[in-house]
């Protein structure tokens, strides 16, 4: 009994603790590179000679872009797991879908926040209406907020899983639109097109960006792992709870009470 208590006390294991340490160290390194070691974006205007560019704002690149990419990863994972649930109806898929949706929503929220903060100096506005990528990203965020609200509002775990899966499969249809929007609506967006392929950025910038991908990937994995375990333990706990509850319920039966309740034996 005490042993199970110990293992259910924490969502970590030696491996995940190691992962956690690496992730935290990675985050610190990333922040160091992003906010201290890399240069701000300053160029001289070819004719006037004024200083132009994004200055320090460009440092958000190292967070914003990896966050966006891993939002995709999380939501795709959620959709795949949801589909898996609808086919197989096993708890594993459902727990994974819920975990991925929650972590993905946090990431998506951070994309919006970093994007807004970046947009303020660069586009001179927090938010740009009519920018298709921004709007589709926001819709994505809202749909998964709805997903989470639905899951929290449903007590019956089966109904919650089933309904959530349907919502996730609908919501994920927005992903390709977010990704392709800058191409489809070229003239309707301030937002950067996909430029990562044709990188002509200086070495340190490139390195930091790659570091960003690595580190945020670790963050995603770490969060997912823990969120999944929390979900799993909750479920197991509920399972144990059911076993205990069944035992309690059956032990609670009192012959005399039952007879009184059905009007016998008196």
């Amino acid at each position, binding site marked *: 009994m005490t042993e199970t208590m110990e293992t259910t006390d924490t969502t970590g294991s030696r491996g995940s603790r190691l992962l956690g340490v690496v992730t935290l160290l990675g985050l610190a390194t990333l922040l160091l590179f992003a906010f201290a070691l890399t240069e701000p974006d300053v160029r001289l205007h070819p004719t006037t000679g004024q200083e132009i560019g994004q200055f320090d704002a460009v440092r958000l690149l190292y967070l914003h872009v990896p966050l966006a990419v891993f939002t995709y990863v999380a939501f795709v994972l959620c959709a795949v797991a949801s589909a898996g649930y*609808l086919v197989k109806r096993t708890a594993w898929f459902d727990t994974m879908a819920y975990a991925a949706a929650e972590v993905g929503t946090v990431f998506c929220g951070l994309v919006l926040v970093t994007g807004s903060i970046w947009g303020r100096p660069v586009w001179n506005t927090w938010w740009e209406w009519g920018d298709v990528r921004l*709007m589709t990203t926001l*819709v994505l965020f*809202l*749909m998964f*907020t*709805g997903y989470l*609200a*639905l899951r929290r*509002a*449903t007590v019956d775990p*089966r*109904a919650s899983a*089933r*309904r959530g*899966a*349907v*919502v996730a499969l*609908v*919501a994920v249809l927005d992903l390709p639109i977010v990704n392709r929007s800058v191409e489809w609506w070229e003239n309707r967006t301030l937002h950067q097109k996909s430029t990562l392929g044709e990188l002509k950025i200086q070495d340190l910038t490139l390195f930091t960006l790659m570091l960003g991908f690595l580190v945020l990937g670790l963050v995603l994995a770490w969060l997912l792992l823990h969120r999944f375990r929390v979900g799993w333990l909750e479920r197991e706990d509920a399972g144990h709870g059911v076993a205990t509850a069944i035992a309690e319920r059956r032990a609670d039966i009192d012959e005399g009470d039952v007879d009184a309740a059905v009007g016998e034996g008196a």
Partner: protein
Amino acid sequence: MSRFFADARLVAAKDLRIEARSRVLLNQVAPFALLVLVLFGFALDADQRTLRAFAPGLFWVAVLFCALLAIQRSVSVEQADGALTGLRLSGMSPAALFVGKASAVFVQLVVLEVLLTAGIIVLYGSEVEQPLLVVATGLLAAVAVACTGTLYGALASGLGVRETLLPILLLPVLAPVLIGATRAFDDALGNAAVDGWAWLGLLAVFAVVATAGGALAHGALVDE
């Protein structure tokens, strides 16, 4: 197959009959729709020209809000006294049930759209330049909203918090319909030089996906 359509018709007829009895659409949703138009007028405090420029968007926002009411009602009719359990026990296919409920909502939405069109013509001074585009947009958007709404109504049904949960689930999904239909109306009302028929294509795709997907997914929800 004929059982399928018979069942769908049965359900749609039942919902429309309840509608006709309680007069909710006529006495309440319709005035609400007009009210929303008037409120926008107040809120924007704008001259006719501005209102006219924004008429397509306001029109479709008003349609969405009214659609929310119609769908809430469509769900609560089944929920109020546990009729949904009866339907689940009736052996009716969930797809037929879906088509039936969605059709009834569709009919109501079309009525509302006609009314709101009259509303923006009178209140905002809009002019219909391409009637065909207006009709096509109205019909396709109504299909899209009715099907998506019925599916999401089933998602939110049985939860104590349905009234508030449904809007936040449904509205983001309907954003493409709002945008597509607004652009199409922009063209049809001569407000902006966009290609309304192209946007109509988007609506058509959405409507088809919503109908097919809804009929399939409804089973997973209603029939547990």
